[in-house]
């Protein structure tokens, strides 16, 4: 079991309130991702759940029991740190065994669990090495191994992939998702990378300045962002947000339209503009087009390869059903 509830939890450092009171429920077995720009309080929130920081007010409930005053060691949570935080003076085997040793499990049981975890994470050949002799990806696996042997109520991941290179990151992302499908244990995952959030989460919590902007499944956030912050944060490349007359025509203060929901044509369209930089990815082509609709260039995605010269005249048409409207406070208009 691993249901986690936050009741009016807040955190202040001195006079600065980093997390105003918030409520959040994470159901047992869910993969929840906290996402937001750096400094939005997502790591602090995770540390409050872990017990590494004390809450200033409010309650943390784990499986319905008040854990607010419970020491981190006793919360039955396992954490994977961004820096891996392996014990440098211990072999991989001892690193993975450490939580079991602390739990005073008998030797045979320890060995069995270590062997199982090592097999799952492809670490069997490295058990006698020191962390210093491992690559970044292997270290991360050891950190995960150390977390899974305990069979905790929930896993907490604090930006676990940000120290890895891009290729490895994609691989580890899949491994962690795979692990979740297999273990079905609650996972809370903190990242600033919205692609990680979109690809891994059952539920995304978008945070900004310590406040929850929106909670929902990746598709809900993509299709119906609650406000302009979420609209701009979720989706890659970023949604085009347009203020002024073009928005007023649709009865909104701001309209938002994603790059993939704008059609580009050489002959006709609603907005006219000139092509700036184009980015060719092979699978897609992104054009940055300066139009009369907005002072900033709009990003447009064309599927597949498409060649347009720098400075070429083009016409853009947003797909009406996929235009998001926001009021003067930045909130979504249905």
């Amino acid at each position, binding site marked *: 079991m691993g249901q986690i509830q936050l009741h009016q939890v807040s955190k202040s450092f001195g006079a600065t309130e980093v997390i105003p009171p918030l409520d959040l429920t994470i159901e047992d077995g869910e993969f929840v991702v906290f996402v937001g720009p750096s400094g939005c309080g997502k790591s602090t929130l995770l540390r409050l759940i*872990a017990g590494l920081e004390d809450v200033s007010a409010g309650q943390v409930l784990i499986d319905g029991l008040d854990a607010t005053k419970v020491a981190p*060691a006793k919360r039955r949570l396992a*954490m994977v*740190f961004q820096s891996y935080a392996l014990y*440098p003076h211990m072999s991989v085997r001892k690193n993975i065994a450490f939580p079991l040793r602390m739990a005073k499990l008998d030797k045979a049981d320890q060995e069995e669990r270590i062997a199982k975890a090592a097999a799952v994470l492809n670490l069997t050949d490295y058990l006698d090495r020191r962390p210093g002799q491992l690559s970044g990806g292997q270290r991360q696996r050891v950190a995960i191994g150390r977390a899974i042997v*305990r069979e905790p109520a929930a896993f907490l991941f604090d930006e676990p992939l940000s120290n890895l290179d891009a290729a490895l990151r994609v691989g580890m992302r899949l491994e962690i998702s795979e692990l979740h499908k297999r273990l079905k244990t609650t996972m809370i995952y903190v990242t600033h990378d919205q692609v990680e959030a979109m690809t891994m989460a059952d539920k995304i919590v978008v945070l900004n300045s310590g406040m929850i902007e929106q909670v929902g499944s990746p598709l809900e956030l993509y299709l119906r962002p609650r406000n302009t912050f979420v609209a701009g944060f979720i989706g890659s490349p970023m949604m085009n947000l347009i203020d002024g007359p073009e928005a007023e025509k649709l009865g909104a203060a701001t309209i938002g339209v994603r790059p993939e929901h704008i059609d580009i044509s050489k002959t006709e369209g609603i907005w006219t503009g000139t092509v700036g930089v184009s980015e060719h990815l092979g699978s897609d082509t992104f054009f940055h087009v300066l139009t009369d609709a907005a002072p900033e260039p709009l990003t447009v995605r064309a599927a597949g390869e498409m060649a347009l010269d720098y400075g070429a005249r083009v016409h853009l048409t947003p797909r009406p059903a996929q235009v998001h409207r926001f009021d003067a406070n930045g909130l979504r208009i249905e």
Partner: protein
Amino acid sequence: MARAVTSRRKIINTVVAWGIGFLIFFPILWIVILSFKAEGDAIRTPIEVLTAPWTFENYSIVQARSNYSMHFFNSVVISFGSTILGLIIAVPAAWSMAFVPSRRTKDILMWMLSTKMLPAVGVLYPIYLMFIQLGLLDTRTGLMIVLMLINLPIIIWMLFTYFKEIPVDILEAARMDGASLREEILYVLTPMAIPGMASTVLLNVILAWNEAFWTLNLTAANAAPLTAFIASYSSPEGLFYAKLSAASVMAIAPILILGWFSQKQLVRGLTFGAVK
């Protein structure tokens, strides 16, 4: 890119460096040479000293006249004792300042360092009186306490720097893994801090071993360490260069040997954290 250095420059630099090194080392070398010369030869001109016959007589005379082993024992007890006493206080102090700092931590560290800026002789009189009152004069316990207090700021500072180098993440990981505070210190912090602790111990043993001001002023016969043993061969009994040299060699040899065998550890400890 490596800086280009001409070979002529290299030679000049090397000669100058060796020259300076020799200049610094020379007094110690001269003491060693004098200790193997007869008392009469020791006060002659350098050339005559070098050509004079070699002898071991100074060592046997010094050994016969004073109780070297007692002074040696006192030095060992005082230097190691004060260091251990210091560690008992410094480890928790450095721990709390490194891992649970308060707003005043920096000020406290600076204040402790500032005590080293006071000339020792400034507090000699009050400490001497306190020692008389407490019956600590000429006792090993008294010297251990004073030397511990003298070196405590350095011990705390060194340990503080080493503890600071240990990533908090790792200690937090131990906490998440179910370790109690005791287990966290025992199984995670201490093994990681051992190189730093070792060099702290070494440096402080050396400092305490060589300390002369307090050891000379607060001892007479019973608790006198090797520094007092050297001093006993200077002016009051006339200048016996050769015997004074022999006594000095006997006093500095143990610590020199200790330093020689642990130099790798010392350098590693002292430059710990200097790179990355």
